[in-house]
């Protein structure tokens, strides 16, 4: 129990961030019209591509003789970039189609 309480105290910043972000995530999405569900899912998909930062750190920290870390890290960077770039481009292409319509309005 004491360990647990200590853990909460040490990590309180992170715990606050997690809780607040959960509410922000829910609030932000809550009022979305169903028309935008697909682009929104796609956009969110691109945002979780932020995992690429972890891949870059792993890659950058890998010792030059640790081939396992180098190979896996390299793969992780490629896959993460695919997620980010592909995600944003696909979303943009979807939303491009809404643009013409909004101009007319």
């Amino acid at each position: 129990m004491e360990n647990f309480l200590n853990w909460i105290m040490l990590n309180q910043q992170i715990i606050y961030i997690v809780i607040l972000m959960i509410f922000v995530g829910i609030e932000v999405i809550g009022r979305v019209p169903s028309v935008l569900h697909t682009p929104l899912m796609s956009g969110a998909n691109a945002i979780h591509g932020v995992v690429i930062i972890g891949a870059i750190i792993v890659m950058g920290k890998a010792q030059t003789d640790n081939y396992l870390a180098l190979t896996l890290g390299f793969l992780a960077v490629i896959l993460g970039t695919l997620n980010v770039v592909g995600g944003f481009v696909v979303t943009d292409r979807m939303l491009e189609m809404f643009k013409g319509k909004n101009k007319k309005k």
Partner: protein
Amino acid sequence: MAQILTLCYLVASVTFIIGLKMLSGPATARKGNLVAAAGMTIAIFGTIFLYENEGVKLGNYAWIFSGLAIGGFLGTLVAKKVKMTAMPEMVSLFNGMGGACAALISLVEYNHLSHEIQLSGIETGHTGKVIIIALGLIIGSVSFSGSMIAWGKLNGKIKDFSFAGQNILNMILLLVALLGATWLVIHPGNMMYIYAIFVLALLYGVLFVMPIGGADMPVVISLLNSFTGMAAAFGGFLYDNKVMLTGGILVGAAGTLLTMLMCKAMNRSLRNVLIGSFGGNKKGLAAGAQEQGTYKEISISDSAMLMSYANKVIIVPGYGLAVAQAQHACHELEKLLVDKGVEVSYAIHPVAGRMPGHMNVLLAEADVPYEKLLEMEQANDEFKTTDVVLILGANDVVNPAAKKDPDSPIYGMPILEVEQAKNVIVNKRSMKPGYAGIENDLFFQPKTSMLFGDAKKVLQDLVTEIKSV
């Protein structure tokens, strides 16, 4: 330098929130996407050039930049080339990439940790780190393999597959993986266990998505999307990296809510989707097939006649329209009818196509005005006064069994009540059942006429025919 990086991450986190917010309004959506992308770019380059771990900067720049270049090139190429109809599976594919990325990070970090333990000989004091690594690995792997299966299902390469006791096997797999993770926490350092967990989690992802019917894939992709968000957040814990944490949790929470919203649109619970009535319910299938009666066909010229002399026509688009890329032909038909004084609108079921909003995106591409798209409740009020309903490759979303037949796998799903209209014309390629694999009574009703053929071809023929009327 670390101060500037902190600022970069702060800016990026804020752009993610603003971007997501803007994405939820039609007028700002595109800009929102760009805002988030800009934030991501700042975070990525900030990390590359400014990141320091205990005073040591990152190395291996050649590897990092070639990885970014390869991924960026492939990503842009694939995303630019993909057809609008294939968008949903594209989202699934990219989601899988993110999941795999998170899993690989966990593997490498564990590798580092096991080296450290071997050098120092101390097994204790890594509990928190190992838990985070193991959870990141499991969630990331499930998200990856699940997304790959969802991708395969959406483009028709993988068929539904289930066997008795599959749910139990799945539970056991997950339990074993979690037990393995617990073992890892107690005895860290051995690479064999982490590979075993990796394989188990991959297998679980496959078996988890395998039995779920194609019609439910949007829900599954949305769920896996939020999984990847959580996996990214675990990466944030691991490196005490605030931007990964905020981005990951944001998507995790938003994705979960979006999943709920989608389930709600189908009037089903998430549990019902996952444990699955689509895959397992063979009874509804057999019963539907027996009731098959006779249907009547209608010719292009008769349909053209019927529509041009109608007062009000409602078009119900479905996946068939998307496959045939018939949205432009559809818009042309609509304009032609409007010129003839017919009132035309579109009825959009929330889950028509393969993803919520799929039809809206397609019709928007063809410049169909926003005001012409009716949502389900609106449309159901309108059908009573409608002369002709033209169904283009939609099936399950207009199946009356959802209202009448408690045995049907889609029972309880709100549908477009097209039967209330005076005439119903159904365009399909054949009498084959829709994606949920069940028969549709609507086709055998007296007021329904079938118009077989590829949606695009049929629409073009209709346009020519109506012009000559």
